[in-house]
């Protein structure tokens, strides 16, 4: 693994078990996150984005497990095979919060309502650093100040309900960044915020990325966010990464019908009111009753008989890969 890679995921499979049925939520996913860059994972609801994130943190529900594959974390002290660690073991607990941190979709519910913001940030520092009480407090205030929270000395002792939505998400990021993690996983961090606040949060994340060399894994379903923030993009559908590459590869030269369909479903400013927004027909299949071959085939405009077989992953260039039988045709089409 190159020194530039922060986290490498290979052929990861995470299955959920309910009533003797098995949901292959993540079904063979591979990607790398590079230091100081952002990987965006895009896809519709239920495609396995969040499960991938939870798997990396080993925060899966009880009735699910890593079936196959590897998650390798490149720490300062050498490579750590996360998939081999005990789910709630000491080593996993050490990595969580200090090496890999996570922020969530809704900062309203992700913070504990009965404790002050300062208390909740200090908690991470208390368990992952050797700082004493006054140092922890100073560091907490410093973190809040870095995240652009006004008068942090007073704000540190306030409760989440005193904060606005955007400030809560900043506080969440302060909490996540408290121990200088190498990787920040952001699970739709701005979905619950309004658009102007979104931009501020993204600016903050960009700053963290360049200043601290943090690798960011950003889960989103917003293609606008991808265009703005991503260095690399992975498009997920039904537990597979159907297309991955640099942001230019994927957004400018999409080779998978699903990526193309996603891009065509976004209204574009300036094209006027009557522009043709294409929705993707059909709905995501029932995870317990999946199509036989390519998972997207039933909704795909390019599907042929060949699509009854699962396509293999094909490397189009050093960075760009796709899982589709028809990718040549899409090249001409584009």
């Amino acid at each position, binding site marked *: 693994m190159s020194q530039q890679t922060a986290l490498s995921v290979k052929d990861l499979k995470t299955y959920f078990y309910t009533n003797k049925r098995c949901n292959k939520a993540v079904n063979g996913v591979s990607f790398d996150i590079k230091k100081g860059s952002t990987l965006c994972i895009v896809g519709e609801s239920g495609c396995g984005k969040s499960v991938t994130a939870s798997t990396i*943190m080993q*925060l899966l529900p009880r009735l699910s497990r890593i079936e196959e594959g590897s998650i390798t974390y490149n720490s300062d002290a050498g490579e750590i095979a996360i998939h081999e660690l005990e789910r*709630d073991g000491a080593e*996993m*607990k*050490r*990595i*969580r*919060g*200090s090496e890999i*941190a*996570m922020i*969530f979709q*809704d900062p309203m*519910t*992700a*913070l*504990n*309502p*009965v*404790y002050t913001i300062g208390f909740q940030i200090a*908690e*991470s520092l208390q*368990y*992952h650093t050797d700082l004493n009480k006054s140092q922890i407090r100073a560091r907490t205030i410093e973190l809040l100040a870095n995240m652009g929270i006004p008068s942090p000395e007073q704000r540190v002792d306030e*409760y989440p*309900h005193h904060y606005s939505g955007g400030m809560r998400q900043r506080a*969440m990021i302060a*909490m996540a960044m408290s121990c200088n993690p190498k990787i920040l996983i952001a699970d739709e961090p701005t979905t619950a915020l309004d658009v102007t606040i979104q931009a501020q949060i993204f600016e903050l994340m960009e700053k963290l990325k360049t200043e601290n060399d943090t690798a960011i894994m950003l889960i989103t379903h917003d293609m606008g966010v991808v265009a703005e923030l991503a260095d690399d993009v992975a498009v997920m559908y039904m537990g597979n990464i159907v297309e991955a590459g640099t942001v230019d590869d994927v957004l400018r030269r999409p080779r998978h019908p699903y990526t193309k369909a996603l891009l065509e479903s976004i209204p574009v400013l300036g094209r006027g009111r009557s522009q043709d927004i294409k929705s993707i027909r059909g709905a995501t299949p029932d995870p317990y009753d999946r199509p036989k071959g390519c998972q997207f085939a039933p909704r795909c405009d390019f599907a042929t008989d060949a699509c009854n077989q699962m396509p293999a992953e094909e490397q189009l260039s050093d960075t760009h890969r796709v899982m589709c039988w028809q990718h040549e045709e899409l090249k001409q089409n584009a």
Partner: protein
Amino acid sequence: MLTFIVRRLLITLPMMLVISFLVYLGLELTPGDAVSHMIDPEVANEVTPEQLAQLRAAYGLDKSFIERYGIWLVNIVQGNFGHSLSGGVSISAIVLDRLPATLELSVFALLFSTLIGCVLGTISALRRGSATDSTLTVVGMLGVSIPEFFFGLVAILIFALHLNWLPVGGRLMPGDESFIDHLPNIILPGIVLSLMMTAGVMRYSRSAMLDSLSREFIRTARSKGLPEWRINLVHGFRVALTPVVVLIGFRLPTLIGGSVIIEEVFQWPGVGSEFIEAVRGSDYPLVMSIALMSVFAVLMASLIVDVLTALIDPRVRLG
């Protein structure tokens, strides 16, 4: 916080006033008045209406209802509850004599049920679906549904009569002086009185805990790499505590109501057993005073619960 308490107290005052009025109205509506109770039925025929009127005037009973209510209220505020009909002892003396025993029993039951209920409920929630959880659920359902006096009798039969571990009843044995001395006496009535509440608190804290553990801040806490006990207790239990405290506040009246029966079963010399005697003897002033005092106790308890809730949950202090 201080403003919160003061404002809460100010809300309690008019409530007390309304309730005291209702209690006095109840007393007024009972057949006969104090004078008719004072006169022996055997000599009632010999008393002239003039003499009756004279007596009524002497006791202020000729005044209007509202006027008498005012005088009564002023007396009560000054701690003068009047006299018991049977024996003519001042009610404050009776209550002061009986109250410590009842307080002792209620506080014991309250602490016991809160502590045991919360602990068992939390264990039940953390081990959801396990054999421990199922057992506690069944025991909890039994505890909620079987009446306390039945438990009381069974407990006396087993622990006092058969096993001879604990006394059958009573509060103070000859020679007992300190609290420790009569600790064995309080164990049976205290635990029996708290059983129903313990079961209720347990069921409720289990569901509050499960609810709190499924919230997103638990996932946040986990993603911070905190140890499991801290996730469950500091984050989970603390949030589950608010609804549990509110429930305990709501259940306090049942505790007071239950103590009336339990005191009778265990011959505990508290206000409750006095209350039963007063009802039997149609001692209306005493019944009303005790009722008024239980209402006062419940109101004070709900005040304390509100203050506690505000202390536990910062969102309550809003505005």
